[in-house]
């Protein structure tokens, strides 16, 4: 069985009696499952409660027109290797597929830039565009790797405790200091300068060609309500490079069977370690008494008790939606209410009757199309697309990141008509808050899908005619279906104001929320969103250290 609907026996309403769980995990997204697995391995009695009929959250594979598509996230290249190791995910069925092509960036003029896993090959490809940029690439690639390594270490650490610095925090600080010095004077100074920068400035320091700048700058704004000229977008790019050796172009890795397969493997690892997972179990409240969590209440009316509750949901929903306002307190409620979740992404999934032919990839196109296909014609067009969203308008030209996973993973089209392919498209910018009307208005979904298909068809003539089936998820759908506040796939904007020591909130960046025994394990916590598992891994570590302290 490839797509996990939890077997009935596990959703049984006559589950175990109260007090049978040490930890309840709210939500079955990938971070929540990582936490559950680590806790179960450490001997905790863990119960995971997922509202939907299927675990995985945004890392999900779903049926569409006889094929299987990555419903929301489409690549998992940022998944932390330590998690794959610790949880032995390979033995739980995880297969990683990494194509030679990282990014293929076609321009309407029929030219293209391709970034390969192999740096030399990328330099060769760049030479066709600009000798200057080809020459600059290795240095820039090195810089991004070096800064990414440093940020990877930061990402794997719990932010220091600003209130009561304890010895181990101090040591962590020293370790950080050492890592920082490890960067050397040049990179050390560079990172203090680069982190707050606009990604457009960052890439322009190395490259002169607009399409090259844009293709690389994309990672600095993906999923964010930022344009390439927004301060802090360079940090987004560098954190995307953190803890995976993606370098300048970033990783491109698929899970065989789609991102859902990763969630499957995580769930299987958690179950094997003794965790119980229930689907169709919606938590309506996180219960607490005297500032301490007591458990959760379900829509079924059941209440389940536990000493610790871990939320895999975003911080706004966790605190302002599920927790007791009195326990949270007015000041924290104000902060949670103002936590920024400006979603700008729509997802369009296509089932195609055949492989699209990109003009810019004529010839050996097949291999180029195996990576991420980034449609970002230039820095200014990206910024203009962003401008529209600032005023609550949908961009007339989207910035797109598409993948054709069926090229790398034919299992996705097993049983479908021969030649069938699936195409997964992330479309920016489509703001959650519309100036006029709402996403529920007649025709909004089709308008987005039509625009996306038209934009792709201009680059791959005939693509429109290949579309057999399509599905559109607007920011409002992301909020309703996946519970993402504001439709923000990263559980909150990764802006400089919601970052490291202050993600999600200054004073609560150590995975502990203001109610004792309530923890945050999702993308709203440091180091933020994307399929990394890192927040979940860090949260598990902190929860275990607390339980040890309690004993």
């Amino acid at each position, binding site marked *: 069985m490839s797509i996990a609907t939890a077997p009935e026996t596990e959703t049984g309403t006559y589950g175990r009696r109260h007090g049978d769980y040490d930890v309840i995990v709210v939500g079955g997204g990938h971070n929540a499952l990582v936490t559950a697995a680590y806790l179960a391995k450490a001997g905790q009695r863990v119960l995971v409660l997922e509202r939907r009929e299927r675990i995985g959250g945004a890392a999900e594979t779903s049926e569409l027109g006889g094929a299987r598509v990555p419903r929301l996230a489409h690549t998992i290249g940022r998944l932390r290797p330590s998690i794959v190791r610790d949880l032995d995910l390979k033995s739980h069925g995880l297969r990683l597929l990494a194509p030679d092509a990282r990014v293929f960036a076609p321009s309407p003029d029929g030219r293209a830039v391709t970034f390969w896993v192999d740096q030399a090959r990328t330099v060769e490809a760049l030479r066709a565009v600009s000798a200057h940029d080809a020459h600059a690439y290795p240095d820039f690639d090195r810089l991004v790797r070096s800064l990414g390594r440093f940020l990877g270490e930061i990402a794997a650490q719990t932010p220091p405790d*600003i*209130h009561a610095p304890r010895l181990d925090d101090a040591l962590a600080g020293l370790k950080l200091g050492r890592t*920082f*010095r490890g960067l050397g*004077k*040049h990179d*050390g*100074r*560079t990172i*203090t*300068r*680069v*982190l*707050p*920068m606009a990604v457009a*400035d960052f890439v322009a*320091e190395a490259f002169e060609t607009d399409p090259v700048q844009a293709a690389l700058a994309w990672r600095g704004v993906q999923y964010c309500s930022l344009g390439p*000229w*927004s*301060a*802090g977008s360079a940090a987004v790019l560098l954190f995307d490079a953190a803890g995976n050796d993606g370098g300048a172009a970033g990783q491109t890795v698929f899970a065989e069977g789609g991102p859902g397969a990763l969630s499957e493997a995580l769930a299987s690892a958690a179950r094997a370690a003794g965790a119980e997972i229930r689907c169709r179990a919606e938590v309506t409240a996180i219960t607490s008494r005297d500032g301490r969590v007591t458990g959760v209440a379900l829509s079924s009316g059941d209440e389940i008790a536990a000493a610790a509750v871990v939320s895999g949901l975003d911080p706004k929903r966790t605190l302002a939606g599920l927790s007791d306002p009195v326990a949270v307190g007015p*000041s924290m409620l*104000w*902060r949670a209410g*103002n936590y*920024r979740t400006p979603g700008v992404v729509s997802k369009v999934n296509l089932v195609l009757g055949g492989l699209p032919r990109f003009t810019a990839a004529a010839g050996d196109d097949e291999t180029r199309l195996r990576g991420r296909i980034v449609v970002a014609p230039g820095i*200014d067009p990206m*910024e203009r697309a962003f*401008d529209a969203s*600032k*005023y609550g308008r949908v961009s007339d030209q989207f910035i797109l990141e598409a993948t054709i996973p069926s090229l790398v993973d034919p299992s996705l089209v097993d049983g479908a008509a021969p030649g069938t392919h699936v195409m997964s498209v992330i479309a920016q910018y489509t703001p959650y808050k519309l100036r006029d009307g709402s996403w529920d208005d007649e025709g909004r979904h089709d308008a987005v899908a039509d625009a996306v298909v038209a934009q792709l068809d201009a680059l791959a003539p005939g693509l429109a005619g290949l579309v057999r089936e399509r599905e559109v998820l607007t920011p409002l759908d992301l909020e309703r279906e996946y519970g993402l506040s504001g439709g923000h796939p990263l559980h909150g904007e990764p*802006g*400089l*104001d919601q*970052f490291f*020591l*202050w993600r999600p*909130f*200054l*004073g609560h960046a150590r995975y502990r929320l203001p109610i004792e025994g309530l923890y945050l394990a999702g993308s709203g916590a440091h180091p933020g969103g994307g399929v990394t598992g890192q927040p979940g891994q860090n949260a598990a570590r902190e929860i275990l250290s607390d339980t040890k302290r309690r004993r």
Partner: protein
Amino acid sequence: MGQRYDAVIIGGGHNGLVSAAYLARAGLRTLVLEQRHVLGGAAVTEELYPGFRFSVFSYVVSLLRPEIIRELDLPRHGLDILPLDGTFTPLRPGDGPAKGGGDYLWRVNDHGRTIRELRRWSATDAEAYEEYGQLMVEMARFIKPILGITPPDLTSLDPRPLLPLASLARSFQQLPERQQAVFVQLMTMSAADFLDQWFETDPLKATMSASGIIGTYQGVRSPGTAYVLLHHYMGEIDGAFRAWGIPKGGTGGISNAIGSAARALGAEIRMEAPVARIIVKNGRATGVALENGEEIEATNVLSSVDARQTFLSLVEPGSLDSEFEDEVRRFKFRGSSGKVNLAVDRLPDFTSLPGFGEHLRGAISFSPSLDEMEGAYDDAKYNRFSRKPYIDMIIPTLVDPSMAPPGKHVISCFVQYAPYKLAPELGSWDDQREAFGDAVVDRIAEFAPNIRDIILFRNVQTPLDIERTTGLSEGNIFQGELSLEQLFFNRPVPGYARFKTPIRDLWLCGSSTHPGGGIMGANGRIAAMELLRSRGRKAA
């Protein structure tokens, strides 16, 4: 060959003069070299039109450090800062809560009146305004010391420079958590996002956020613009009057006061003495050469001109290693503001509040909505001047009649955005100067239609003009963008934020250094202190 000085200072702007005064005060033989016939750099008063005197560039005193006023006894040297009361935001008909005619938002120093005015717009905003004001004053108290710190080099192994940071960290720890959180937001958020947390009244948010974008190539929705919201309140702790106002006789009045103080302390000031280059002998600055060929020897050379001018034009090529030069080239200027100076024979009459009352005596802010502010920035991003610019208008003659003939007035319009680099199809600023001036007058006319009939004389300062006259690279009024990555220990170059330069005995003392631009004088003062300290160390 002239006689030898302990310190020669390039540039007679306010920071150069402050450095000169402090060095002379410490007994150093000090010489200031100013290229122009007027003292003050961007803080000058000039009679551009017979009988009308203008603060041509910089036009208000924002944060002139009280300790400088005190230590140099500037009032005795003629410094007299006249209060500007309130901010008037005119609106178009239908923009506000008032039924029928147009409306406005008018905040004054009288807190009670301001609250009553805000209630007209929103009861919750009036309430939030109190809380917000108190919080901001707390924040300002906390952040103020930073303006007086010499930024450390994080990559250096010497812990001493980190000490001021440690004490800062301690006082941060003592703040309540919510204030800590708000401080972080101020350093990282956009002015618009920050204000959205408190207020709903659009013209209020737009007008407050304006202070966040002045002199920057950023919009009110750009991260990092919230911080400047504090400046207003920093002023308040010094006492609103001393900190916010216009100097009698225009901003040249400040420069002349500091200049007079410097002279009184023994400093020499030479006018119309442009410096051609900084003489460097085996890695050490030994003096300067003037454009007329004269060479002046000095033990220390201080440059108050910006980092690009100093390192890429004044220093002899080859005296700096290429990596440092690259860093200097990376330092962004991107002038984004222009200035339109008007001589008028009557006052402008605003449709939203007709007549010539108190509302004209403060700042008049053309900032009806956040979207219009952001839209003005969007134009600039694509290298066009704003079609509907933000304008900060002041009518100095209402507080200082000496600036114009009786009954007549001068109007100062600070305008954003006017990007230094124009889109190719626009040609150069020499082609666009008047079009830009027209755009500004059109914008004013939206709210005060009589403006067209009252103008006797119009002087337009584009970023290119500012660069040509004052030497400010790309016309950036802060000697380098005040963007997050160009602040504190990154200003102007990571690792060289301590006023010293890679060339021994060459120092920076202008706004290219921490804490940045504005008529603050802090840069000049800290630079002088650092130099004196290092002399102390050498002597010891």
